[in-house]
């Protein structure tokens, strides 16, 4: 019962967070300065996600190599899925070689 209630509470809080914009701001439009801030949230969030995903536990250079390879391939115009798949293969290969 304790688990179910905790999960339910987190679910409801999550719904409220996602609904927070429409519920709090309603029909009002944001001023230009706020629109500029809002436009920067997506790239900033992505940068933060990369940092927290790579450095969240402890730095692992085999993981960094795979992620870096995917990034380089993407810059070279390789599509998203093959680029990521190549990164996974490189990391798995390195771990296999290093035992």
């Amino acid at each position, binding site marked *: 019962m304790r688990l179910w209630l905790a999960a339910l509470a987190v679910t409801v809080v999550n719904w409220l967070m996602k609904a927070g914009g429409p519920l709090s701001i309603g029909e009002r439009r944001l001023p230009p300065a706020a629109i500029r801030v809002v436009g920067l949230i*997506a790239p900033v969030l992505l940068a933060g*996600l990369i940092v927290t995903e790579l450095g969240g536990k402890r730095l692992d250079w085999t993981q960094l190599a795979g992620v870096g390879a995917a990034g380089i391939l993407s810059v070279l115009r390789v599509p998203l899925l093959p680029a990521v798949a190549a990164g996974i293969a490189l990391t798995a290969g390195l771990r296999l070689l290093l035992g």
Partner: protein
Amino acid sequence: MIAIDRTGFAAGVRLGLGPAGAGFVLALSFGAEAEARGWGLGLPVLFSALAFSGSAQFTLLTALSGGTVAAAVASAALINARYLVMSVALNDSLRGSRLSRALQAQALVDASFVFAHRDDGRYDVSRLIGASLPQWVAWVLGTAVGSLTAPSPELMHRIGLDVVFPAFFLVLALDELRRSRRAFAASLLGAGIAAALLLVTDPGYALLGGTAAALIGLIPERDPGPAKITEETS
């Protein structure tokens, strides 16, 4: 009630397939970990279907083992406070009544929010919803498979599955950074803040703190540069 543009929705579904694959892998670990902690099958799957939030679900799972329910719920809520920021950002692009807009905003997840971001700074809501659909299916399915099969974290690490999410985020970030110099500067600052906060706190809080870098948007642009806004709103 919700006007969905079919083209945008279909584009979103296609874009969402990549992160859906990554989400499936993460959901496998969530299901396996929940099973190992005695959550059974029903609760993790229902939790994934209704909450649809990796960061909050993992936080609750770990925090419950070491503390009170109230503290665990508060941690899971705080870790998702970034959705409040994203929801405010999305509000101007939503249509319909307040309730309808609140419902549309439930499609918010990190990757979809980025996919929905348009060059003019607004958000394509049909694309947002389309991108979240395959991710939701994969998230729920992955949780069920993880709970039933309980794959070992060691095996998942050995085959390099921890590369999936950061690699996706990096590729998406490279696209975002091409948009403007200011986005590049804000991203560098956000990454720096998140990295510094990581030294003293959990990833969820570091991520939330990093979003403060978007405040550099408050500084008026001296030189509009490539006349981006006028060009794209015309």
